């Protein structure tokens, strides 16, 4: 099976390519860039896609999704999560361990990977828990999870509060060359907060989560990163102070990378003003100043990647009092058009944006030749039209999670084809 993608604007930041080129995929791999395509076009076994005027890039890699399976299949399954990923242009997703049971041992990892192979349409890379049951006490069997296929460890959503445990986790992870992903939150300081602590929470009478709650743990984990030398990845950075801490740490040569989500670089906490629970997310949507700092961090490279923190919930779960609604935004299917606003606002060039969605996440976690269009690499490709206007319609989501604050927004950027291992898994 061969696919010829003709006349597209090929953007591959891993090779600094940004020009009109043909791309040939064969046997599930990138074959090359044929300039003369006459023979291929005559060959009936070759599927030809006309990509003129469209962008062709490596498939996107989302380092932060919640696929909810096993345990919360009413919110999402590996199948629906993968379909949503494909619709959003993602060819690989990295899934967090807060399932039920928690992905804290090799058998759960194997279950997830089996499901992904049989029902998923994109590549699934699981993240193992740092501690057993995500309880923050005893280390999980990190080595065995690595053998089973985990690509990182994290206690996402239930961060390790005990600094000694975190130190040992970071030391231990080094033996298996696994990065540690930190959901940076001081749970005592967040307490029962439900939104950003500030003027808006004051007006709404909702309990606030202060910026310090994130920054204290970012500072702690950077310090532990210096102590242990382990690669630390800070998930969903939401505050100006956290951006500053990561910037300073990078300058000192600490092995730390940072991630921004579309909702944190698009919204500020005024979005919560009508108690819309689709805006309830952890870390919370912060002030305008924080949002600007995240954009700045993306621009100057402090924040290396864009990830969605895709956190699907059912409508019933979200249609309750703000205090009772679960945290999370369904993000896979709105990521590209929201990210393209960074290009429109001249924060990033299109190439820089694609780098943060492809090559950079691949470098952090998936130590393989993904996130690139180099010949021989897996044929994970996305074709999109950056200029086509789309209206976000949550009722058309592939994800079971319709919990998006962007419903009804008019945005630019439509995914046309998503190709995983040489197979078309989504076409518009």
């Amino acid at each position, binding site marked *: 099976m061969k696919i010829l993608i003709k006349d597209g604007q090929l953007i591959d930041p891993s090779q600094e390519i940004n020009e009109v080129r043909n791309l040939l995929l064969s046997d599930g791999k990138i074959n090359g860039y044929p300039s003369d395509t006459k023979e291929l076009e005559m060959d009936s076994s070759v599927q030809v896609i006309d990509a003129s005027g469209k962008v062709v890039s490596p498939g996107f890699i989302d380092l932060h999704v919640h696929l909810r399976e096993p345990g919360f299949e009413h919110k999402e399954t590996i199948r629906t999560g993968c379909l949503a990923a494909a619709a959003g242009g993602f060819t690989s997703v990295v899934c967090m361990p807060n399932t039920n049971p928690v992905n804290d041992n090799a058998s759960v990892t194997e279950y997830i990977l089996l499901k992904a192979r049989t029902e998923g349409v994109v590549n699934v890379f699981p993240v193992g828990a740092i501690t057993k049951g995500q309880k923050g006490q005893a280390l999980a069997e990190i080595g065995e999870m690595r053998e089973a296929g985990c690509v990182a460890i994290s206690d996402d959503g239930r961060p390790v509060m005990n600094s000694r445990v975190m130190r040992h986790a970071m030391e231990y992870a080094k033996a298996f060359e696994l990065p540690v992903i930190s959901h940076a939150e001081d749970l005592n300081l967040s307490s029962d907060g439900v939104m950003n602590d500030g003027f808006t929470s004051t*007006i709404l*009478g909702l309990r606030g989560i202060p910026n310090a709650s994130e920054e204290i743990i970012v500072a702690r984990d950077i310090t532990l990163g210096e102590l242990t030398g382990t690669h630390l990845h800070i998930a969903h950075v939401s505050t100006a102070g956290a951006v500053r801490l990561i910037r300073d740490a990078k300058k000192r040569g600490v092995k730390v990378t940072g991630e921004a989500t579309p909702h944190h670089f698009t919204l500020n906490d005024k979005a919560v003003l009508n*108690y819309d629970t689709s805006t309830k997310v952890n870390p919370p949507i912060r002030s305008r100043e924080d949002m600007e700092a995240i954009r700045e961090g993306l621009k100057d490279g402090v924040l290396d990647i864009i990830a969605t923190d895709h956190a699907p919930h059912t409508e019933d779960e979200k249609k309750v009092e703000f205090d009772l609604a679960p945290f999370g935004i369904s993000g896979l299917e709105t990521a590209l058009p929201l990210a393209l606003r960074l290009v429109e606002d001249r924060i990033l060039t299109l190439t820089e944006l694609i780098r943060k969605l492809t090559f950079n996440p691949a470098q952090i976690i998936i130590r393989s030749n993904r996130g690139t269009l180099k010949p021989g690499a897996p044929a994970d490709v996305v074709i999109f039209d950056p200029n086509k206007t789309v209206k976000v319609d949550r009722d058309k989501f592939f994800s079971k999670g319709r919990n998006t604050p962007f419903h009804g927004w008019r945005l630019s950027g439509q995914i046309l084809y998503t190709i995983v291992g040489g197979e078309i898994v989504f076409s518009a």
Partner: protein
Amino acid sequence: MVFEQKHILGLEELSSDEIRLILDTAESMKEVSERDVKKVPALKGVTVVNLFFEPSTRTRASFEIAEKRLSADVLNFTPTESSVVKGETLLDTARNLEAMGASVIVIRHSMSGAPWLLARELSSSIVNAGDGFHEHPSQALLDLFTVREIKKEISGLKIVIVGDILHSRVARSNIWGFIKLGAEVRVVGPPTMIPRDIEKVDVKVHYNIENALEGVDIVMMLRLQKERQESGLFPSLREYSRFYGLTRERLGLAKADVIVMHPGPINRGVELSSEVADDMHSVILNQVSNGIAVRMAMLYLVASGGGSG
């Protein structure tokens, strides 16, 4: 002027003209309450549900009397034991009541924003009888009404709100109301109980009660919830009362004709010394009877105004 709001969710959403209209309407309602036959047919055939998720004797009773004086059909629903325990959601409970014909739902809930959920999802008019730490519009409107009755004009008055502003819906609603009607608003309390960035709504923040009382026309005391001590917001009732309790001596710093208000129930010897509590008794009772008139006005305006049409 026609009242165009379908709901009364908070004073933040109301314009100063709308607030004045409610207060003016309450004056006519007060007149009804002073008649021998205290009843008008304004809401005849209208079903009003009092949906109280939090225990509240006074607010609920006041709404109920107001509804009955307007000839509404009244249903009291206190879902503490029945549906909530069985796991029914707020929305399902309210939808059931609407299906029974309720066209106005008066809701009291411990969580901020609960009335907004109903306003968004139901077709009834929603009246907020207090939500979490957010707003308590009927309390603030009756406070405004009482002050206006005594002082004639609210614009230019200086008011200080004392105590746990952070967890107070009464404070938030009164801040909006008094600012919109042109008063100068101060708040004072331990910094642990002053909400972030509150000065951005044009409120002056004090931590010292003597400074805050200087020259004010109105002192509004908030009830101190004793469980705030457990969450570490202040060390002891004794210390709180020493630094933030209202005594006759401290009250001397305010204007001679100062009014002291309290939404009740009072913790004697904590936020108020007993002597101050006794001195202010008349205003408190006045507030209670005004509360009925103000709630009649609110219900009348949402049920018969342009908005609900």
